[in-house]
């Protein structure tokens, strides 16, 4: 009886057996202008020789699974003989869902897992609950923690107490990696080069070059300086897929501050975009989205909790999700929360080694937990009682 842990994200699916390592695989299909007939699924992305103008087909919309056709195709590929070779009758599955998932989607998920794939048993859970489980496993003495999951579609701030999520405190900011990449595409297209079609390439740019600034206005002033004094400015070499396979950032020593470059590469010169784009996580109002940023929403969420629990939440803030990988993210969150929190409380912000796989690791621990057998719903259970038993057992 093996257990497959699948953190079903809107961009990456983190999947692996609980006794093996995790694989991070794109959870979508791709179509390319060059290879016209074939649709690439998930990790077949590596086979595409020319990822320019890559067309994404995502099963998720605004963070919720709406397109089951695409999702089933991706899962067929992942569960099939090329990847994990799942023996359905002998496997449990732990699968994650977004918060406040719609009941129609939950029912469909039950049907697909039990009737189409026919897993032996299944556990549907929120990704943040797995992160909290992992955190409590490491810090046994703590009672409460608050998880900030900043992913592709949105950011959720969820308080957990004794392993259960507190629904009144859940806060959703509609800013995620997708918004940041699209915004970066727009401003580069307006200021320098038309890249609106190049989602994959600009995503790479964002990951390589963007960082979270500790002092926004000071960085803005530095970015306005000319020549060598402008320590913020970087040149990014775009890939042309013949000689340069993958874009990279030019090191400062090679940069040419006056005049143009002699070689024929395409260069993007990035100054304030480097830190203005991740700033949207902290101030969504910069772009016109009338919502609180992450630090403010954290404090707001904690203030909605009972008084006696509040100091415990401030002491255990956990950052997960892809956006946590921006350099300077953790320090900035700490600085802002410390400024907004009452002075007598201790504030501690934890950034795990691998924020993307943190929930998956929690799922792995959960699968090894002795209580696991009672938490899952078996196929026989489902066939007798239907959706009702899943609604009762799973706390979504």
């Amino acid at each position, binding site marked *: 009886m093996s257990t497959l842990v699948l953190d079903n994200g809107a961009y990456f699916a983190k999947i692996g057996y609980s006794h093996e390592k995790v694989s991070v695989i794109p959870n979508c299909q791709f179509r390319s202008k060059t290879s016209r007939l074939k649709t690439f699924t998930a990790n077949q992305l590596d086979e595409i020789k020319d990822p320019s103008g890559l067309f994404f087909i995502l099963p998720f919309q605004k963070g919720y699974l709406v397109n089951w056709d695409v999702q089933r195709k991706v899962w067929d590929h992942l569960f099939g003989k090329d990847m994990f070779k799942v023996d359905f009758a002998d496997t449990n599955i732990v699968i994650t869902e977004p918060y406040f998932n719609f009941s129609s989607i939950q029912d469909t998920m039950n049907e697909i897992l039990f009737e189409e794939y026919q897993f032996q048993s299944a556990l549907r859970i929120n990704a943040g609950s797995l992160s909290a489980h992992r955190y409590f496993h490491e810090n046994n003495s703590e009672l409460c923690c608050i998880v900030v999951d900043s992913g592709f579609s949105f950011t959720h701030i969820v308080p957990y107490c004794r392993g259960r999520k507190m629904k009144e405190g859940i806060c959703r900011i509609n800013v995620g990696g997708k918004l940041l990449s*699209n915004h970066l595409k727009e401003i580069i297209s307006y*200021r320098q080069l038309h890249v609106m079609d190049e989602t994959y390439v600009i995503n790479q740019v964002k990951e390589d070059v963007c960082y979270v600034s500790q002092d926004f206005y000071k960085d803005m002033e530095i970015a306005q300086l000319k020549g060598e004094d402008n320590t913020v400015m970087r040149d990014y070499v775009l890939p042309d897929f013949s000689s340069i396979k993958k874009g990279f950032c030019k090191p400062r020593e090679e940069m040419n501050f006056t005049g143009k470059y002699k070689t024929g590469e395409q260069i993007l010169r990035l100054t304030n975009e480097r830190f203005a784009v991740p700033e949207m996580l902290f101030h969504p*109002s910069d772009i016109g989205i009338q919502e*609180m940023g992450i630090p403010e929403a954290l404090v707001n969420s904690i203030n909605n909790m009972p008084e006696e629990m509040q100091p415990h939440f401030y002491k255990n803030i956990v950052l997960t999700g892809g956006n946590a990988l921006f350099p300077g993210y953790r320090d900035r969150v700490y600085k802002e929360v410390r400024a907004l929190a009452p002075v007598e409380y201790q504030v501690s912000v934890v950034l795990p080694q691998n924020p993307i796989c943190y929930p998956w690791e929690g799922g792995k621990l959960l699968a090894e937990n002795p209580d696991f057998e009672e938490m899952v719903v078996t196929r026989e259970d489902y066939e007798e009682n239907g959706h009702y038993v899943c609604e009762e057992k799973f706390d979504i």
Partner: protein
Amino acid sequence: QLLKSRQDINPSQACRVRSQDPNQRRVLDSATRQRRLTRQLEALEKDNFQDDPHASLPQLVKRLPQFDESNESGKRRKKTRGDHFKQRFRKNFQTLLEEEDLSVSEGPNYLTAFAEPSKFPQRHFCAVCGFPSNYTCVSCGARYCCVRCLGTHHETRCLKWTV
């Protein structure tokens, strides 16, 4: 008016192109500006800005002969289920949200989890260069930081497409 602009240097050259006569300059009202902003924000939610490369292919290409005849009987059973799913579950996000009918249920749900507007004032950035801006374009409400950026804005974006 002409006399003044001849004395000015380059930055105001762009302003000369546009008529400064208040009667001729079109100004958008706040409702239109709000609609434009909403359109821009919705555009940021898109997955792809280009069209599907497979969209223009003729349908015949997809019905290539199957090479593996032996799998037919096993796959046939799955295919009917697949079509069934396709008809039932091809709904988009908005439809699903409405179906959920959250106004009826009590307690925290998807809609109540929405983050509230920030207590801090909104910061404004120049639409052209991205640095902090102090001024607003009279016609369309876009922000700019200096006269050179205003010139670029007028030439490229101001009122170039209507809502």
